[in-house]
């Protein structure tokens, strides 16, 4: 079960951040999550893997995670310390993958979040507080099936618990 409240600094990127940008194909053939984290967002922001702190929150525009089905993309972010991703919209495979590995993702309408802002997210309600700017945003609710998987800590934990889908 994830902690209900997370707080961290925002890293802000634009629209259509594709999975090749999150983790290049040449790095994906591994079971070592730490090696993924070393190259996370390398072609988009070579500094990111150096400056990211545990608990930080990624903020992006539309269609975050488009492209490949590689689950290495959310895994690289999570292993690097990213605690949640809030984007205007997500590509569907990335969205499923993130929930499945227990990385909280939030669909958030246009919000005035700048790099370095401190955000506090209530994982249960999807309320996002911008502490720096004293603003409050509301993320779209997850479908119940995804809430159940995320609350279990991911799909592996969910199925270990239930043995089968018992959520719909």
């Amino acid at each position, binding site marked *: 079960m994830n902690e209900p409240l997370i707080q961290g600094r925002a890293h802000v990127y634009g629209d*259509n951040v*594709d999975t*090749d*940008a999150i983790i*290049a*194909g*040449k790095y*994906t*053939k*591994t*079971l070592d999550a730490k090696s993924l984290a070393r190259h996370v967002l390398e*072609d988009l922001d070579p500094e990111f893997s150096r400056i990211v702190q545990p608990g930080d929150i990624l903020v992006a525009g*539309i*269609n975050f995670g*488009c*492209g*490949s*089905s*590689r*689950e*290495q993309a959310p895994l690289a972010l999570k292993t690097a310390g990213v605690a949640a991703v809030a984007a205007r*919209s997500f*590509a*569907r*495979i990335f969205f*499923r*993958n993130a929930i*499945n*590995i227990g990385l909280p993702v939030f669909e958030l309408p246009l919000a005035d979040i700048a790099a370095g802002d401190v955000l506090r997210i209530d994982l249960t309600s999807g309320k996002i507080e911008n502490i720096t700017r004293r603003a409050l945003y509301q993320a779209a609710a997850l*479908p*119940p*099936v995804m809430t159940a998987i995320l609350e279990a800590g*991911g*799909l*592996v934990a969910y*199925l*270990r618990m239930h*043995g*089968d*889908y018992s*959520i*719909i």
Partner: protein
Amino acid sequence: MGQTVAEKIISAHADRPVTAGEFVVARVDAAMASDTTAPMAIRAFASMGGRKVWDPSRTVFVIDHAAPAPNERIANLHNLMRDFSRRQNCRLFEAGSGICHQLMIEHEIARPGSLVIGADSHTCTYGAVGAMGIGVGSTDLAAVLLTGKIWLRVPQSIRIVVDGALCPGVRSKDMILSVLRRTGIAGATYMAMEFNGNAVERLSLSERMTLANMTIEAGAKTGFVLPRGLRLPEDPAQILPDPDAIYTETLRLDGAAILPMVSPPHSPDQGVPVTQAAGIRIHYAFIGTCANGRLEDLQAAARILKGARVHPQTRLIIGPASRQVFLDALRDGTVEALTAAGAVFIPPGCGPCVGTHNGVPGDMENVISTGNRNFKGRMGNPLSSIYLASPETVAASAMQGCIADPRTFALEREPA
């Protein structure tokens, strides 16, 4: 109320009538993973407490993304797949067999009306034969191996109607690049795309695969090419949408007005007519991938390059989509014509499209590729630029050393 193809196939696999927007748990007919996704899926399956896969005969692993292994780390991941497949008695396609999606259709594992879950985003290719192919990540795939089921949101559908005969030298690749230009890279997110119209009815299976393959480039969950005009070895029941099915949108294109297209870096939805890109220097041309690595694609390139030479400052690499494609192209002289022209053949598989090996571009180089993605760094070098085009356009550009309009050549082609 009428149903779309997506609603019909999911209804059949959820054992109740469903409509767009509903959440269901559906039975899966086949599950597939490649060497990029299978190792993590195998580990997740074990972590879930899995001992035996739900149905070994419906579980397919393919070693295609980095095959044969370019280094010891990947060789060991391939061995993990081999060991698991042997122990579980599931189907394994070895390195050199071909690209997973090509094999799933060649071997009739993806069948009309079936629901196939693949741990690769281009699983949507199966819509070319009327199968519902949905791409997922490794953990979702592991859950299918464990349960034989998947949870899905029934997608809404967008209809694309293309009427009017395509001009000589224009292929389904140009059609889908034109569609992507209209939808944008996120225009069909969470949706199914249905292709229809008399220009689509005339397409071969190979060209239909190109269409369905690139629906993910609009963010789609899956894509279908309606089966009218399709000839398959067996003639199964054709799944067509009801006349009163509901679509969020209908896009209409005039087939006769579609021009050869080139999508410049770094997104597949930026296509422009080849005339607007003509003359851009090309260092490296690539023909292959699950989008356009089939016999017809190689033959189209050979028609342009036969008796000619690849430009001395350009290299041409060809990756057949499968061993069967390679064999067919060997037998009919296509491989000889292309090799004599200066092309280099690499083993059947994904090749350089995923940036692991078999031809990574150098800094500041321009690549023209028959692939489906040109994101920055896609082919292994973020300092290179990738242009997407049809096999005809890639072959013409390889010969000229710069982006070239294939119609100059295609007009000379002999009638089939």
